[in-house]
């Protein structure tokens, strides 16, 4: 590839999305180094992708995520450079330099003049060592305190999730639905437990048939108000045919008319692909 022959626009888009094989990507990257025109076009494509990324359904991270970040930020404080006043130029002190200071260059001192300055230096050195030790102890304590704070935050998150799971499993208001294979012997079975006002859902299935690796089962919440089915998580059964979807991210307050399961391509889908292989209301 040379700068005169520009990159095929289809491949440029795939390169921007990091979807090319290593060899092809490396060749394009090498061309980019030399071709400002292709670099410009790549930037345009990245701009298009940035706009496209914003079309995703917006959801907020948990409040703990913000707290966690700010704790990390506080732990990794930056050292802000301080402007220092210009120091007077010192004579060169290179080894072997003729301008090096020697004993002969220093003024002669008496006994007191020789000893007292050393007492001062010894005190200063002692204080510096003590201060250094205190600083190290303080930094160690700060580090371990921050670590413990993180652990507490993590434990709180875990406890909150566990409490939500228990509430969903035991709530009197929970809707408990058994899903069976449509129009067939009820061998594959699944149970969805859903609390609409909390958006909590626990789904457990068994006797599910195995799938090709490029496919997944996808669970759908079918709203009671007739709006579009909401994807509620994808899953692959284990070797025993068991699978579960625990607390998928769902909007709160959506009353469910039914739940369904479809087979989708890996990665799942935003709209169910017929047929619905399991359904329960």
């Amino acid at each position: 590839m040379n700068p005169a022959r520009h990159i095929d626009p289809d491949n440029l888009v795939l390169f921007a999305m990091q979807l090319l094989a290593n060899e092809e990507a490396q060749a394009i990257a090498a061309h980019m180094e030399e071709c400002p025109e292709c670099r410009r076009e790549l930037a345009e494509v990245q701009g298009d992708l940035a706009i496209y990324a914003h079309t995703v359904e917006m959801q907020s991270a948990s409040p703990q995520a913000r707290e966690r970040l700010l704790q990390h930020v506080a732990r990794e404080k930056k050292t802000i450079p301080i402007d220092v006043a210009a120091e007077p130029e010192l004579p060169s002190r290179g080894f072997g330099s003729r301008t090096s200071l020697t004993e002969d260059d220093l003024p002669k001192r008496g006994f007191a003049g020789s000893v007292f300055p050393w007492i001062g230096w010894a005190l200063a050195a002692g204080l510096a060592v003590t201060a250094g030790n205190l600083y190290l102890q303080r930094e160690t304590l700060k580090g371990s305190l921050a670590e413990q704070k993180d652990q507490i935050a993590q434990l709180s998150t875990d406890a909150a999730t566990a409490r939500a799971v228990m509430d969903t499993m035991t709530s009197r208001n929970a809707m408990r639905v058994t899903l069976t294979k449509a129009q067939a012997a009820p061998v594959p079975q699944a149970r969805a437990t859903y609390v609409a006002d909390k958006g909590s859902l626990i789904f457990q299935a068994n006797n599910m048939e195995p799938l090709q690796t490029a496919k997944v089962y996808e669970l759908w919440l079918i709203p009671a108000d007739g709006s579009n089915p909401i994807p509620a998580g994808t899953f692959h059964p284990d070797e025993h045919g068991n699978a579960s979807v625990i607390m998928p991210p769902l909007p709160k307050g959506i009353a469910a008319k039914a739940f369904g399961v479809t087979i989708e391509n890996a990665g799942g889908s935003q709209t169910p692909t017929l047929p619905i292989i399991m359904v329960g209301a």
Partner: protein
Amino acid sequence: MYRDTRIVNDPPLSTQDDAALLALVQRGDEYAMASLFDRYSKVVYSVALRVLRDPAAAEDVLQEIFMQIWRNPGGFVATRGSLGGWLAVVSRNRSIDALRRKRPMEPVDDMALPSNYNLADEAERNSMIEKARGVIHLLPVEQRKTLEMAFFDGLTHSEIAEMTGDPLGTVKTRIRSALTTLRKAFTA
């Protein structure tokens, strides 16, 4: 708790532009970092969640990206493009890397992303999002699905062709055509 390096008469952080906030972050201002998080965490998290479909993994990507900004705010020079756009694409790329369990590879790191919108402004950002969603909604369904599989599911053109049964060339063209339509709508 946070180190504040602003001077008293500075405008509130929530109204400062990205370049000003990044400059404050460079000086170790934790309030500025919190403001950037409040401004852009939603899009970073939403993109990661769409790709990974796992809230915990999406939050990990969110943390990683914002810590990258804190450690090296100079890595993104605001005058070269839109920070919001850059973050959205980096979030997608990091999430795909996490999905493939491979090391980060970011051609976008050095890139100046053009943007006709000031994504730092919430109203303007919302207007851009509405317009983009409208354009995507009007795309032919094959183009829309193919772009979604490539961008959000990280499937290669060969994988998409295998799944859909469409020829490789068709898959590639659909992805590019969808993006071209989006670009035209925003440059018209």
